[in-house]
């Protein structure tokens, strides 16, 4: 019998305590941030979209190897010994032409594992989180700064160089020094002659390598450069 009255009393008291809590909260200001008008301040270590600074990339492939989902695709071509690609911002000399550097940002799991191995700190995560696209293919960001013709040309250059090197080795050794001097002089005008030929080859190469998305990749290339700040 006393349990009966205890039940009634505990029901009334706990309900009133609960109502008091809710009533107090009527006067607490709301914690909502009204998103499109007001945006949240993100901390400096925020990891959202990847950005990659092509000027500093030496093509070492460490980031692609560190990625757990294989979203970075890199292809490089060795440069010829007399070509000068310049230096990166922390003094390393670049030795490779990067002909393909695609990051599929739809695959990226935002784990930051690619940022740490980079020797020049050219790949990092920014605080951009509003980058949705209407087409899925637009989410493959192409960071390589060479135009498609140049990419093909670099590859052909290198192949030619390799062929010449092999031919030299096959030729006699004492004549090597003199021949090398002559060939290097021929190599320069040869480069200029190659260009019209590459124009004929263009349709084939376009069909052969469909992953050169110039138009859209050009857009997405400018977007990261314009909007982001570099971290500290």
């Amino acid at each position: 019998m006393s349990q009966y009255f205890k039940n009634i009393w505990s029901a009334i008291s706990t309900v009133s305590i609960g109502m008091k809590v809710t009533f107090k909260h009527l006067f607490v200001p709301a914690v909502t941030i009204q998103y499109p008008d007001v945006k949240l301040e993100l901390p400096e270590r925020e990891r959202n979209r990847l950005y990659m600074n092509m000027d500093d990339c030496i093509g070492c492939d460490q980031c692609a190897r560190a990625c757990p989902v294989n979203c970075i695709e890199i292809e490089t071509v060795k440069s010829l010994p007399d070509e000068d690609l310049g230096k990166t911002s922390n003094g390393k000399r670049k030795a490779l032409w990067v002909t393909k550097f695609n990051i599929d940002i739809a695959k990226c799991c935002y784990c930051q594992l690619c940022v740490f191995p980079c020797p020049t700190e050219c790949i990092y995560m920014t605080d951009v989180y509003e980058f949705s696209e209407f087409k899925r293919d637009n989410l493959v960001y192409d960071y390589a700064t060479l135009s498609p013709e140049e990419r093909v040309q670099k590859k052909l250059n290198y192949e030619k160089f390799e062929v010449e090197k092999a031919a030299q080795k096959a030729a006699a050794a004492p004549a090597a020094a003199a021949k090398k001097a002559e060939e290097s002089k021929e190599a320069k005008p040869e480069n200029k002659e190659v260009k019209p030929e590459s124009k004929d080859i263009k349709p084939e190469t376009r069909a052969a390598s469909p992953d050169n998305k110039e138009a859209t990749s050009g857009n997405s290339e400018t977007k990261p450069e314009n909007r982001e700040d570099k971290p500290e």
Partner: protein
Amino acid sequence: MSLDIENKTTTNEKLKTEEMILNMGPQHPSTHGVLRLELQLEGELIVNVKPHIGYLHRCFEKHCEAMTYPQVIPYTDRMDYLASMYNEFGYAIAVEKLLDIKVPERVEYIRVIMGELQRVASHLVALGTYGADIGAVTPFLFCFRDREKILSLFEMTCGARLLYNYIWVGGVSHDLHHDFLRLTKDFVDYFRPKIKELNDLLTFNKIFIERTANVGILPLDTAINYGITGPMLRASGMKWDLRKDDPYSIYDKFDFDIPIGDGRMGTVGDSWDRYYVRVLEMEQSLKIIEQAIAQIPEGDVTSAIPKRIKPVVGQVYSRVEGPRGELGYFIISNGTVNPFRVKVRAPSFVNLAVINELCKGHLVADVITVLGSIDIVLGDVDR
């Protein structure tokens, strides 16, 4: 009813009342993820509950065999996505045991602080969604508001709010932000009165007690036989916590209690006890965090991270006390940079198996109460 002269039986004995099979399908507002429960009902009483899992299976263990040891860590995050720090913690401890390296003390303190903050966040989700299932929507929002503060602490440290990739083998990825300790102390002071508010609003509310007391009673011997760990086991009366019984990291340096269920609102081991044990555990976690903040030394957090992880041939099993129970990692290495096998003993998977025992004899509406008190995460169950 017919006579079977040869066997001298009547089919009256085999006559069953019509049993209905009800499907609480994969899409349901209360099943905390994609879980299918097949209920066999007799009228309103439950005869049998069969959980069908696998809707979220992502082949984590197979995937690990193709990754290198550091690359596995983002994958371990995604198993129990509400307690990611603990998944990483368990894995890092396992691989460190295999490699036999010792991490600096500052790293240990940071890991403990992050782990306990994560425990509070995970329990807030569990309590909030449990209240929302029972019908009280307001505590759900209060719990999530507090959880946002914890997530912004994590965001300040490593940049992500849910899937961190922060605790690495041999250390942590970034050192603490210079404001972190001060803000964590502020959070602890802010949160203590909020636990009291949650108790006022939900825990001791008579209607809530009526709904959850004496529902889903888990006797202690059943719990041990099924291999239940975590708050469920402690609510059934047993004081078993890996942080005290099999200490890992530096938990033996801290002074905290292990709350157990005492059946004050009903029987020992009912849903209310499981709920209340989680509330008390949050308070104990706050205690640990305060002690860790006071004792943390200076040091270099990345000094012990190996450049290339290539352990010797061997195997290791190591376990940690996650917010849902004992999380165990069994790693076999064959001497290469990829692990040969990573097997995870997921706490939610083992805890879910007991739902059949708990629901027998209750009404249909109690299934949701019991399921909420077991506190499963489907990412952990299915991996």
